[in-house]
């Protein structure tokens, strides 16, 4: 059993993970994870109708204080979810925006962000 085995998967990723941040016009507005899921559904319904709203999206993590979330979608629907989230402008009569900060087929990669880490170097 001490053999060497190597498998390379090069196809379209089965799952894609998005790290997004929700911002409201009014900075005091807060929503919970269930509302956030509804917001994602609404965004998808708006742009892609009922076929869009039926796309399965998992919210792996939602931080209530910063309203940052990690979403899991299938690779085939990544573009739809990404575009729908970007084009969302309003939720529950309040203007809001979603920033997609990181997208990756590797969930581990979302744990660190080397792009934004050094922006606030101590000086």
């Amino acid at each position, binding site marked *: 059993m001490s053999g060497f085995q190597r498998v390379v998967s090069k196809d379209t990723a089965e799952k894609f993970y998005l790290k997004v941040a929700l911002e409201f016009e009014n900075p005091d507005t807060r929503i919970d994870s269930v509302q956030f899921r509804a917001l994602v559904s609404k965004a*998808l*319904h*708006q*742009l*892609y*109708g*009922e*076929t*869009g709203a039926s796309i399965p999206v998992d919210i792996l993590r939602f931080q209530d204080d910063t309203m940052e979330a990690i979403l899991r979608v299938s690779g085939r629907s990544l573009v739809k979810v990404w575009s729908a989230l970007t084009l969302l402008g309003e939720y529950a009569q309040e203007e809001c925006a979603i920033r997609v900060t990181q997208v990756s087929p590797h969930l581990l990669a979302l744990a660190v962000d080397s792009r934004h880490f050094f922006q606030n170097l101590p000086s």
Partner: protein
Amino acid sequence: MVRIKNRYFLCELVFEDAIWRALAVNNQHLYNAVKDAVRQIHGDYGAAAIAWGLNVKYLNPDTGVMMIRVRRQNQKILSTTLPFIKSVASFPVTMRTLHISGTIRSCQKFLVKYNRRQLVVLLRQCRTKEERQKVRESIRRCTLEQEEEEFGDGALEDT
């Protein structure tokens, strides 16, 4: 050659109560019904994609058969939406897609064939003798035409 490629959908409007409702429906009603349904099923993206080139080309108020034109790249959007159309001009209705083709000509060919088949069905449903006679008459007429076509131009002149 650069050419805009289209798909023509031949559909039948099936009214729930009576077929004469078709007389009250016009192309504009159908167009709006299709567009609203696409917006509902495929959202803003689908509605915007299909808006370019969507057209109701033909509507037969007697039989309720219609033809919709759509750009070829968007045919999937339309074909997935048609079953979800529930009403046209506030009449409850279901759509039956009969045929999809790339040209109006082949749609028309299919429609002729289809109507001929429908006549036979109609014959079976007839009850009174008069009706039966009428349908027979029309069947004979269209089969005759076919023969004439086979004989070609010369045969037509003779008659």
